[in-house]
């Protein structure tokens, strides 16, 4: 189906067109969500929410971007909103446990244990560590790096989704790599030198 025809039909809430869109993008959206939230249940829930949002906001789609950019943009925004909410809840939990005088929660180290199903066996441990360290990056760097690494997107595609220039994406990618190198350096120094 041609993109223009698909958009026109989606704007008319055509069910077959919507089914076609879901089938075309479900793995892409799910994979992106998995990369951001590192949890299959949450990723599936977010994927459903993304398509519900796409369906509900399709009427206001102005065709300045491609349908792919539109879907990915909603997916990224949903994932970021979810992560922000999760962070707030964690902060509140830590604060409440501090009030109760229970410090155990803050002392527990997070072990990178999420295994992406698409990673080959010998790389699974490293990939889990990398995904965990990516979570510590500033939001915009994380978005650019995740879309590049998990969806194999070009800088141009990332720029369209993030609504920034290509040079800004390049800068974000460079800084993300530098930060990850520093974080991994600190991590491996603990194990290799000791």
């Amino acid at each position, binding site marked *: 189906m041609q993109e223009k025809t698909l958009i026109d039909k989606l704007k008319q809430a055509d069910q077959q067109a919507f089914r076609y869109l879901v089938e075309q993008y479900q*793995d892409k959206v*799910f994979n992106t969500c998995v990369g951001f939230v590192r949890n299959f249940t949450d990723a599936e829930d977010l994927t459903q929410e993304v*398509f519900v949002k796409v*369906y509900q906001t399709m009427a206001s789609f102005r065709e300045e971007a491609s349908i792919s950019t539109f879907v990915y943009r909603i997916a990224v925004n949903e994932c970021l909103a979810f992560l922000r909410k999760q962070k707030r809840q964690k902060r509140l939990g830590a604060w409440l446990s501090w009030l109760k005088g229970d410090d155990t929660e803050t002392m527990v180290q997070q072990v990178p244990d999420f295994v992406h199903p698409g*990673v080959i066996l010998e790389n699974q441990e*490293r990939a889990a560590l990398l995904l965990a360290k990516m979570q510590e990056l500033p939001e915009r760097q994380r978005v650019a790096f995740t879309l590049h*690494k998990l969806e194999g997107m070009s800088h141009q595609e990332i720029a369209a989704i993030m609504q920034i220039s290509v040079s800004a994406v390049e800068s974000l990618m460079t800084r993300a790599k530098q930060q990850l190198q520093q974080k*991994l350096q600190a991590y491996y120094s603990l194990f290799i030198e000791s």
Partner: protein
Amino acid sequence: MKNIEEEIQKTLHSLDGLERAKANPFLYAKIRHRLAEAQTPLGIRLPVSLQLGMLTLVLVLNFWTIASNWQKSQSSANNATTFAESMGLTLTDNSFYP
């Protein structure tokens, strides 16, 4: 140090050539279900201003009902006292036999 640098590079490239994670095969059905739920009206939705107006009206009516009942009970008590006085039925503190 060389070991660490190697480890870092290997880790940074560990996601290269990654295969996409597959979505649930029943995803479309779940989305349709969610959309149907979102479209089902939960009841009559009134604008917030109208809801506030109705709440204020209920509170005013309650207050008015309580106030008018209190006034009525006061006036009937006064009437009873006046009637009792006119019939010489009132008791003073020190006269049990008027």
